């Protein structure tokens, strides 16, 4: 077995940090370290000549440092501030158990909307019920224009030669479609009052 074929030992222990604490710092590291120092010292804004990206990174590191402190050093909330929060929360709701009331409001709101929709549907039905009257008025308009409306009827008149038992289906369909399209156009014109 060659050395490269040997299984690697398990990764035991903490992974090495790069770089080592004693490694010489780069220029970029020096700038970042200085920016972090300023943030930890509570100084606002980047030092003159220091790019703002390094300062923003340092500010993030400062926030992170604060979160580390918070994890190890619990703080108390001041009693005044705490009472403010309680008062504000209790003032937002007239009753502590507001949930049932919210449910009722929802029921009432949805009930109202449903009622309105039902009324609208009823009105629509009534309006549709008058459609024959409108049809009648259209018919009257057509009659006034001296035209008659073509009505639905048998297609037998289109085939005076009779219909064979087989064959010619497409031709018959074309003939029906052409005749009915003509009827349709004439009815439209008659309805508009065109002679």
């Amino acid at each position, binding site marked *: 077995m060659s050395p490269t074929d040997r299984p690697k030992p398990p990764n035991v222990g*903490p*992974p090495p*940090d790069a*770089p*080592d*604490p004693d490694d010489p*710092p780069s220029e970029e*590291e*020096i700038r*970042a*370290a*200085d920016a*972090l*120092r300023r943030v*930890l*010292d509570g100084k606002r804004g980047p030092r003159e000549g220091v790019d703002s990206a390094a300062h923003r990174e340092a500010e*993030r*590191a400062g*926030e*992170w*440092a*604060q*979160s*580390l*402190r*918070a*994890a*190890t*050093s*619990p*703080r*108390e*909330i001041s009693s005044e*501030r*705490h*009472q403010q*929060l*309680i008062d*504000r*929360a*209790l003032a*937002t*709701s007239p*009753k*502590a*158990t*507001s*949930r*049932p009331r919210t449910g009722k409001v929802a029921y009432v709101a949805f009930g109202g909307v449903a009622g309105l929709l039902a009324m609208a549907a009823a009105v629509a039905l009534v309006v549709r019920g008058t459609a024959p009257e409108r049809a009648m008025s259209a018919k009257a308009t057509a009659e006034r224009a001296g035209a008659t409306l073509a009505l639905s009827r048998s297609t037998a008149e289109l085939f005076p030669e009779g219909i064979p038992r087989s064959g010619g289906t497409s031709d018959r369909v074309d003939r029906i479609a052409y005749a009915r399209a003509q009827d349709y156009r004439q009815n439209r014109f008659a309805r508009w009052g065109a002679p």
Partner: protein
Amino acid sequence: MEVAISRVGDIGVGDPHPFLPWEALPEVFGTARRTCIVLAVKVRPFSPETEQALVARAQGGDRAALGELLSQFGPTLFRSVLYPRLGDVTVAEQALGDTYARVVERIGTFEWQYPGIYPWLRMIALHVAIDLLRARRRELLFEPEDLQREAEDGPTPSSPGDPASALMERRDLDAARAKLEHGLSQIHPRYASAIRLRILEERPREEVAVALGVSSSTFDVILHRAMAALRKAIARVSPESEEP
């Protein structure tokens, strides 16, 4: 009344034995009056029966009762759940306010069960904290996923007679410290020392530089590297990596 005291370093403020009766305190901590701190010993707020009655009154619309419950448990939520996980006083206060708003809104849905209302309050606080962490999108010690796991773990059943809020507070504080300590154990010892002394103990920069045997400017670089190393180490820790 006997005031319980302890030498500095025996036990810190905010780290007391919870709910010990006053009579037991001298036996546990002694009464020597040397350089001392007064322990922030909590007094058990009310019996389970009283707590249950307060909850029932709060659910019936009694705002005073609800206010009493919040007054009692809110500081614990702030101290052990919100502040350590959100890492900022202002944000933690905002989270506590949001938690109260949700409690007021949902108190009617709470069903009483042992060990009381605190686990329910803690769960709401955790979810509020998750929302805030997601909204902030800043790198902090805790990620939203960490809190999600804590919320999914749910409350640990405590033995009868032990106040649940005290046990859960201790566990929450320990969890926050453990996460940091685990990260520190993964980095170079000099980096860990730099963070402990300068960040956690907030010692002056020059003093820490002397302690580490380097110049102040070299210490700045070491601290910068230490912070980067710790962030990487904590980011490496995930539930998947901890599983066998």
